[in-house]
């Protein structure tokens, strides 16, 4: 270990130290203040005569007399199966009063990239029991599917509902995989104690805590620490998935706070900022988090990620949702209007997307009509939504019968398909049945996205007659 008392400059979260010996890039650092406080940090830049250190717990109280120790290794996460059931702080230290953690191994938290040739393409359907997800934005094992939300919207309720209800129907699970267990890794970054409790209470009530590892960096915890919390969480998740065979669901909330911490560090380093002051490398940085979802050939487990972010100003072109959307495999979009109408969960399916849906659904996985039904629902709802604007101007009477039917559909779609409540668990059959109920409002010839055989099989004849009768 190399120890120096040669701090030359302290600026925001950064400390600059003169060194006589070479220090490795990314190495861990401990800084001891004169009153004995120990802060942890990491080397951001190393030159032959000085080193820039980013301090996780904040620099207040550090002075030029503080001593700086370089630990000679990069930041590690102690991993073991015993982490299940434990609650840790944002740097991976237990805060639940439980026994000390005896690690199996200590792993670098900057995970190496999975070689694309070693990946297995994700295609196992996860039934979340939520129609707007299962029916139209299907989640599969190994996917990264964020929730794009905004302040005041019930994204946590949706995340909890998914964590509670997620199952993989037996006939979808690959052979011999029956025994693989399910685990949750929860990484909280800068959320309020109240929000954190909401999660903890639900985990405890449902017994989920036993199969969970919880990392908490709360709103009043050091901001810089947030840059390591998700990496701690994902290192644990990878270990559980790829070494121990668990199917791990990783919930990271709130990625917006993570990005704010990145911005803070960038500003302290006086970097040339990118869009709206966020670092130019934020895309790459976020990718090193989100890309740690997936499956690996020949390994049992999987890492599925549901990151949550709140869009500043409800704006999905803001760099945080924008860069996230460019990396993740779709997004579930929460909607303020639907929420104010009381719809639960207030998912707006139109801007939502699951890119891995196509290979995860259909015959043998969900049902053969799934893809067509989903496409048809999208097209019909989009058309109904458009007409709502028109109706405001010209009134319903100016619309023809076809248009009126689309308007009715949009209404019923939101009430019956989307608004199922946070405590209703719908099987994929239930979801598709609700969908056919709605689609049968249209004459068969309008259903041009669904195969003709499927229409014959699932179309509900009387449904359209009743509607036609009322429309006349």
């Amino acid at each position: 270990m190399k120890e120096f008392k040669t701090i030359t400059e302290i600026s925001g979260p950064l400390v600059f130290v003169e060194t006589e010996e070479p220090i490795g890039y990314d190495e861990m650092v401990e800084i001891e203040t004169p009153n004995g406080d120990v802060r942890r940090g990491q080397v951001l830049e190393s030159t032959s005569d000085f080193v820039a250190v980013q301090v996780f717990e904040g620099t207040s109280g550090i002075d030029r007399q503080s001593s700086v120790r370089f630990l000679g290794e990069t930041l590690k996460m102690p991993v073991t199966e015993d982490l299940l059931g434990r609650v840790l702080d944002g740097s991976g230290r237990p805060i639940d009063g439980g026994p000390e953690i005896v690690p199996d191994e200590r792993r670098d938290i900057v995970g190496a990239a999975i070689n694309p040739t070693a990946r297995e393409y994700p295609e196992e359907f996860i039934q979340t029991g939520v129609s707007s997800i299962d029916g139209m934005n299907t989640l599969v094992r190994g996917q990264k599917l964020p929730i794009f939300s905004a302040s005041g919207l019930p994204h946590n309720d949706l995340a909890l509902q998914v964590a509670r209800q997620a199952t993989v129907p037996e006939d979808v699970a690959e052979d011999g995989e029956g025994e693989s267990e399910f685990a949750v890794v929860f990484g909280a970054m800068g959320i309020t104690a109240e929000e954190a409790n909401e999660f903890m209470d639900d985990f405890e009530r449902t017994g989920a805590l036993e199969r969970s590892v919880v990392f908490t960096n709360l709103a009043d915890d050091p901001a810089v620490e947030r840059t390591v919390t998700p990496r701690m969480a994902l290192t644990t998740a990878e270990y559980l998935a790829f070494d121990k065979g668990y199917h791990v669901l990783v919930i990271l909330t709130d990625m917006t706070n993570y990005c704010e911490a990145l911005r803070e560090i960038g500003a302290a380093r006086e970097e040339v900022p990118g869009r709206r002051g966020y670092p130019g490398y934020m895309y790459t940085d976020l990718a090193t988090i989100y890309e740690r979802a997936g499956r690996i050939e020949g390994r049992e487990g999987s890492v599925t990620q549901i990151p949550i972010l709140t869009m500043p100003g409800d704006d999905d072109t803001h760099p945080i949702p924008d860069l996230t959307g460019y990396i993740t495999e779709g997004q579930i979009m929460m909607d303020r209007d639907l929420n104010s109408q009381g719809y639960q969960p207030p998912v707006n399916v139109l801007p939502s997307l699951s890119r891995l849906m196509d290979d995860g659904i259909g015959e043998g996985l969900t049902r053969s009509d799934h893809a067509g039904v989903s496409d048809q629902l999208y097209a019909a709802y989009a058309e109904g939504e458009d007409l709502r604007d028109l109706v405001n101007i010209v009134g319903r009477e100016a619309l023809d019968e076809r248009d009126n039917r689309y308007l009715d559909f949009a209404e019923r779609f939101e009430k019956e398909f989307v608004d199922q409540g946070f405590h209703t668990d719908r099987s994929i059959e239930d979801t598709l049945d609700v969908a056919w109920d709605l689609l049968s409002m249209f004459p068969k010839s309008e259903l041009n996205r669904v195969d003709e055989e499927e229409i014959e099989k699932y179309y509900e004849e009387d449904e359209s007659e009743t509607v036609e009768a009322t429309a006349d």
Partner: protein
Amino acid sequence: MSQAQDIDIDDADGVIESVSGPVVVATDLGARMNDVVYVGDEGLMGEVIEIEGNLTTIQVYEETSAVSPGEPVLNTGEPLSVDLGPGMLDTIYDGVQRPLDVLEEQMGAFLDRGVDAPGIDLEKEWEFTPEVAVGDELEAGDVVGTVPETESIDHKVMVPPDFAGGEVESVEEGSFTVTEAVVTLDSGEEITMRQEWPVRKSRPTVDKQTPTTPLVSGQRILDGLFPLAKGGTAAIPGPFGSGKTVTQQSLAKFADADIVVYIGCGERGNEMTEVIEDFPELPDPQTGNPLMSRTCLIANTSNMPVAARESCVYTGITIAEHYRDMGYDVALMADSTSRWAEAMREISSRLEEMPGEEGYPAYLAARLSGFYERAGYFENMNGTEGSISVIGAVSPPGGDFSEPVTQNTLRIVKTFWALDADLAERRHFPAINWNESYSLYREQLDPWFVDNIDDDWADTRQWAVDTLDEEGELQEIVQLVGKDALPEDQQLTLEVARYLREAWLQQNAFHDEDRYCPPEKTFLMLTAIKTFNDEGFEALDAGVPVPEITSVEAAPKLNRMGTASDYEEYIADLKEELTAQLRDLY
């Protein structure tokens, strides 16, 4: 420097002065710009990108955690190069041409660092058939023989472009490795199946010509409205989730190129895995052979080192040029050029260069045009003709096309396929906006379509364009007063345009039949909609009300033309039905 060569360390080696992410500064390094160096105790591969006095700045192609000042830097004295030879097809590389399957064998599922592997297998023997004889005079670029590289492609062995040439002294025939001489010249030059070429320098040709043949894509909206030429350039910008990757992959699968180079530049790992899993299974519509046998993949995903992302487009286009030199038509897809530009920005900002627009380096425009300039329809040194078509995806922040990468790209490329978030939201795929997109090749390619597909190609296309234009104008009125307020003929036009959009422009990339649409089918489908239009207007003239015309039983069948398995019969029958039913109305 290519990894196939023995490293010849000279005394011009240096010492690390500082490390910051992918950027390392060394002192006392006697290297030239763009030389490849090996950095630190682990020998991480890097490239010299700036020299200032005794300080040399290096971009490192691997993770630099724990690398520290004082460690050595070794100079190879060679620029970043690729190995060119048989074995590049049916292979997946990272951004500096390391075969990913070899890396997996050496270090398992996760990409470790400090591991090198040659771009082409140096041990493998290939069957060489000469095409020259002793006494022949050869010049640089000439073909000396062929090697069956894959089921689909014969690899041509050529005299390297920088050779002097001369008279053939000896010729071999049979099995050889890529490093053994197969032809020797009286100049003393030995020709092997392997060449090396620096990635940042384009391979020489004789002449660039005006392209007149389309790169047939099998995508209706592209072939029909916005065709790309063999040797042309196209940009496909769009916000996240609008269909850039799906379109690029469809092109990689179905375009009638001989060779496809697909570059995943800073995008998702799973997307590359999908290609690796799908392409060996899918048949090439031209040859029936597995698609992989004409494909070279380059994957530098978003979480792989950013410096190697910067170089991956050059690695790709140099490989493309090598096949072009053999006389092949090559299609290169880069998904996404924005990630490449961001890699430039990231490196540039670490160098503390003066930033240009939005933090991108001032040389952004020059780099982009330098890259697209390497596309074209060429006369090669050996007299053959070959082409490189380049299709670059662009990922504008916030979907806003006014940003520097989109704008600088649009100044160069001749085809613009604008993706539209609104269309994608309503699942109108491909979400290519037909009002904003354009192809400057349209007129010069029309003769080919007229000769090869149908005399009426250009006229029918024009009818479709006009109808869609008219719909756009009418929709604005409808938004104000509703459809019923329009005169009858305009109502009918709206209905026809709806079929153009839903039955013709839309194409489902995931439907076994619909995903590939040969231009013959593209044309026939259009004529069916035109039949509905023409017969419909006849009926209207005869006094039939619009609702009766639009609700003829056969009309919705137009929507199933794309997915019909025997489309010729389906469309012929449908036209007859439409005509009969519409004439029955009066």
